[in-house]
């Protein structure tokens, strides 16, 4: 039974680490299916984390969670203005938006600390047990003993899948990512669709950042997004730009992050920093094994000139 408990603990930690990644990767998926590479997701994540910490301290974790999404969306809006309206190069705007988010949150945090002292840990969402389901050995412990935000993510994956493949808006969005001129011929505006996709991407990434605070640590620290925005993009590539693949990719990355708990549990002597580097190496290997971006939307990263 001890082994099963170790496995259960490991999977529980894997799902916990995967949750913020899953939100951000779902956002990245929507943006990339609309043809936009948004490496500014990192900025949305860290703004989401900071806003959720501030608002949750005042109004509780539910309000903090929503505030995190809105803060992330505001960063998505900045990105959209430069990429869609001003048609600037996506990668450079993304790098700048990430810097903007990290710099703003670090500054605002310092202002808050100097005026009111370091914020106390906020009350977080506690694991929500579901009758019967949570009792299932290993599976129940891993997947159905999580905070409510994780259940929201479970619901979002099929919802986004349905939206992308079964609605007019979703089909138009994918058309913009594959062949913008075809979308125009069909009467859709790529600019409007990309803007909407980027706002959704920012909102979901902000929720991912908020998850770190209101469902996990209860505190905010500068740069706590720790590169998760970039991992999200790797997850999308690993998941071949499909919701199902992205869900699996997020779990794999969550699992690698959780390996550190497992190595402690079984007393396996591997330097901690090497374990921390593995998700990045895994992404590189996976991208090389998949030979780059065969499954990528055809117009991904292209700057649309005439709309």
């Amino acid at each position, binding site marked *: 039974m001890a082994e099963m408990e170790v496995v259960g603990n490991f999977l529980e930690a894997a799902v916990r680490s995967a949750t913020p990644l899953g939100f951000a990767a779902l956002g990245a998926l929507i943006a990339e299916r609309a043809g936009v590479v948004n490496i500014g997701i990192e900025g949305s994540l860290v703004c989401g984390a900071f806003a959720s910490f501030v608002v949750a301290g005042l109004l509780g974790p539910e309000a903090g969670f929503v505030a995190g999404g809105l803060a992330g969306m505001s960063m998505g809006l900045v990105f959209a203005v430069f990429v869609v309206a001003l048609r600037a190069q996506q990668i450079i705007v993304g*790098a700048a*938006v990430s810097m903007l988010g990290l710099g703003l949150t670090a*500054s605002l945090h310092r202002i808050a600390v100097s005026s009111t002292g370091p914020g106390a840990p906020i009350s977080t969402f506690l694991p929500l047990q579901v009758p019967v389901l949570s009792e299932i050995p290993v599976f129940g412990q891993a997947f159905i003993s999580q905070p409510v935000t994780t259940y929201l993510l479970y619901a979002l994956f099929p919802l986004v899948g349905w939206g992308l493949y079964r609605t007019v808006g979703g089909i138009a969005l994918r058309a913009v990512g594959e062949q913008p001129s075809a979308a125009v011929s069909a009467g859709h505006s790529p600019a409007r669709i990309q803007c909407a996709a980027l706002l959704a991407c920012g909102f979901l990434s902000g929720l991912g950042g908020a998850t770190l605070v209101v469902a996990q640590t209860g505190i905010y620290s500068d740069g706590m997004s720790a590169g998760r925005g970039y991992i999200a993009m790797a997850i999308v590539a690993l998941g071949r730009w499909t919701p199902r693949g992205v869900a699996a990719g997020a779990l794999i990355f969550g699992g690698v992050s959780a390996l550190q708990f497992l190595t402690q549990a079984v007393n396996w002597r591997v330097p901690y*920093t090497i374990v921390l580097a593995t998700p990045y190496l895994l992404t590189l290997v996976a991208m090389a094994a998949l030979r780059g971006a065969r499954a990528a939307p055809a117009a991904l*990263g292209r700057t649309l000139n005439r709309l």
Partner: protein
Amino acid sequence: MASLLASTGVFTCALAVVALVIAAAGYDLSGAARAAVEGAVGSPFAVLSATLKRTAPFLMLGLAVAVAFRAGVLNIGAEGQFLAGAAAACAVGLFATPVLGRATLLLEIAAGMVAGAGWAGIAAMLKRRFAVAEVVSTLLLNFVAANVVAYLVRGPLQEPTGAYPQSSMLEPIARLPLLIDGQRLHAGFPIALILALATWWFFRSTAAGFRFRMTGSGRAAAASAGLINVNAVQMHALIASGAIAGLAGACEITGVTYVLYEGLSPGYGYTAIAVAMLGGLHPLAVVASATLFGALGAGADAMQRNAGVPAGFAVVAAALVVLGVLAIPRTLRLLRPAWPGRS
């Protein structure tokens, strides 16, 4: 001339926006501004030991980014290449000094360049062999490099007492000489200036530089001209860019910190993108923009120390500079052909 005016305008606007935010946050703006100006240019010490000391890494990393971007390669891994160079220089410095004495310094610099080139070379190989976009691979390698440094300073390179996560201090003979007694400006600064001139000459007057520029301004056109192997040129550009970033890392550790530790680079590699963009990817203009960013960093530190205003605002200003440069249509026209199609 027009682009110089535009860049100056963008920089001024970014500073003005940040000043407004600082004032709106309830700080004493004039006090903050005075602290910033004094900290950046107020005294010989401020200029030599704060501003120009900081300019050296910005200039080298800005040149590294410019070399790659001019050839149409999106190297956003200058941060990791910088760390690789610093770690290699540190390792060489710690182990070779008793044997080589003064000559260690040359070996440290060489090791830094090779390590930076090698770190970028991983991304170049992944691009060539497996079609992995360098945007993603160079970025991911930054995090790997940070973790490798974290491992080294807790393992093979840790100082003998094992109390702190950092390396031992480099011996004085294994350090870059200081230029002026009592000031912290080191020989890395003139090296960076020479590098800027060399890069300018390379782009202006050599056949290889011409191939770099042609590849950057249009892959298809460069390839159809028949004489340019665009894949090879981009690979060389990425590796050269990594070597320059590695040099920056080696100079930082042999000239400023003398020890390897985790926070060695406070995001220099990312700020370098702003430095290169503000300089319009022109090597000589990058000298000016690196100096501005050096002053900005020195001023921001003094502002935090003496007026309590968070230094993070300097990062915000840098981000606004990049966005501002992108917003200028003229710059857009100049840059857009460099990245056609996919990124």
